């Protein structure tokens, strides 16, 4: 019936055994058919689970959490009663101002003007298509001096281009995609297992959303000079924001 080593085979599969115990189990696996089958089935269950959805915290939850922490900090300040009454006004006023700014930021996220819905659809659609087909990259290069001139001949704009290997945002190439009728230049970055598409097109007065999250994909819009930028990825929002900060500094 059930082999006594089953739990140790599982521990071997999970990388929980030290070297000598692992060697023992490897030897055992060669002679015990039941355990060899178990190992294969652990692998197939793991494979199935990797297809199950990983649920990430929404942008709204992130904001709510930060707001709650701000509130908590204000609360503990109010409790430290050694401050004279008058002195408590300014920290309170400051946190009030922070809350107002926060509410304004939230409203900004929530009140995406309807005109930009099409814009979000366009960039999200382009991002998904780029992952699906072999249409991720038109010019494959980590060299900014190759990618930038290539855009000059193919897209409407030629955005500033840089590779950030030290921050683990590796430029893998460029592409042209259509966003709201513009021939947008797209920089493609890899960050760990994630692909990040950065779209750039010439600003034409459209209203921009700030951050939009849909189906686990974040898109961050910003404007610089007469160019509009949008970074899209399934990477965590703070990681995506890190790339946005780097790009703004080029």
């Amino acid at each position, binding site marked *: 019936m059930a082999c006594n080593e089953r739990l140790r085979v*599982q521990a071997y599969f999970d990388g929980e055994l030290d070297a000598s115990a692992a060697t023992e189990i490897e030897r055992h696996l060669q002679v015990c058919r039941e355990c060899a089958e178990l190992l294969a089935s652990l692998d197939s269950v793991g494979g199935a*689970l990797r297809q*199950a959805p990983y649920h*990430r*915290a929404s942008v709204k939850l992130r904001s709510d*959490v930060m707001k709650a922490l701000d509130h908590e900090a204000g609360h503990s300040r109010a409790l430290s009663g050694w401050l004279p009454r008058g002195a408590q006004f300014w920290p309170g006023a400051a946190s009030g101002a922070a809350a107002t700014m926060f509410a304004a930021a939230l409203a900004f996220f929530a009140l995406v003007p309807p005109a930009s819905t099409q814009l979000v659809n366009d960039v999200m659609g382009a991002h998904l298509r780029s992952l699906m*087909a072999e249409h991720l990259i038109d010019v494959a290069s980590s060299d900014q001096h190759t990618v930038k001139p290539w855009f000059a001949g193919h897209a409407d704009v030629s955005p500033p281009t840089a590779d950030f290997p030290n921050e683990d945002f590796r430029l893998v190439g460029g592409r042209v995609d259509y966003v709201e009728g513009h021939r947008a230049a797209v920089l493609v970055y890899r960050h760990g297992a994630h692909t990040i598409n950065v779209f750039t097109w010439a600003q034409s007065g459209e209203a921009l959303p700030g951050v939009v999250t849909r189906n686990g994909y974040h898109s961050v819009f910003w404007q610089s000079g007469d160019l509009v930028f949008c970074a899209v990825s399934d990477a965590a929002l703070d990681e995506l924001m890190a790339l946005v900060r780097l790009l703004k500094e080029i």
Partner: protein
Amino acid sequence: MDDKRRRFEAQALPHLDAAYNLARWLARSSADADDIVQEAILRAYRGFDGFRGDDAKPWLLAIVRNCFFTAAGQARQRMGVPLPEEHAENDADALIDEAPDPELIVMRADQRQKLDHIIAGLPQEFREVLILREMEDLSYRDIAQVTGSPIGTVMSRLARARALLKETWFRHMEGVRHGVQ
């Protein structure tokens, strides 16, 4: 920003996604998961001075789990029964596939949804060890810390959970092959 807040943001908040994923799989509802995570983060922040160690992830996840039990207890008192949600929002994820064959994409989406239901249908003590091991990549020791159970129990539950999942999943796949869903 004070020092405690800075340390909390650096050590605990990077695990916000993990906290949400666990809450979401435990509660099986995104609205409940939001509430649980909010409460858990506040409790974690209040208790952060007592946190010793270099990895805040199992510590935070244990708090999430406790908050889930508190919320579930309150829900039971209200006689509310949480139902698994529909998972239409995940369908777009299925588009990320190397093969752009539409039929295959639809099939994969169906399978993901089914898989989601199967995991959601596992008893909670099995579901949580699977999520912590397979999705969060926690060690047995960390899972023991999160679930407050001995390592031996973690190992046997994990074995049982995987066997259950395999059985249900392959029964489903067998059904698909024979055209019966």
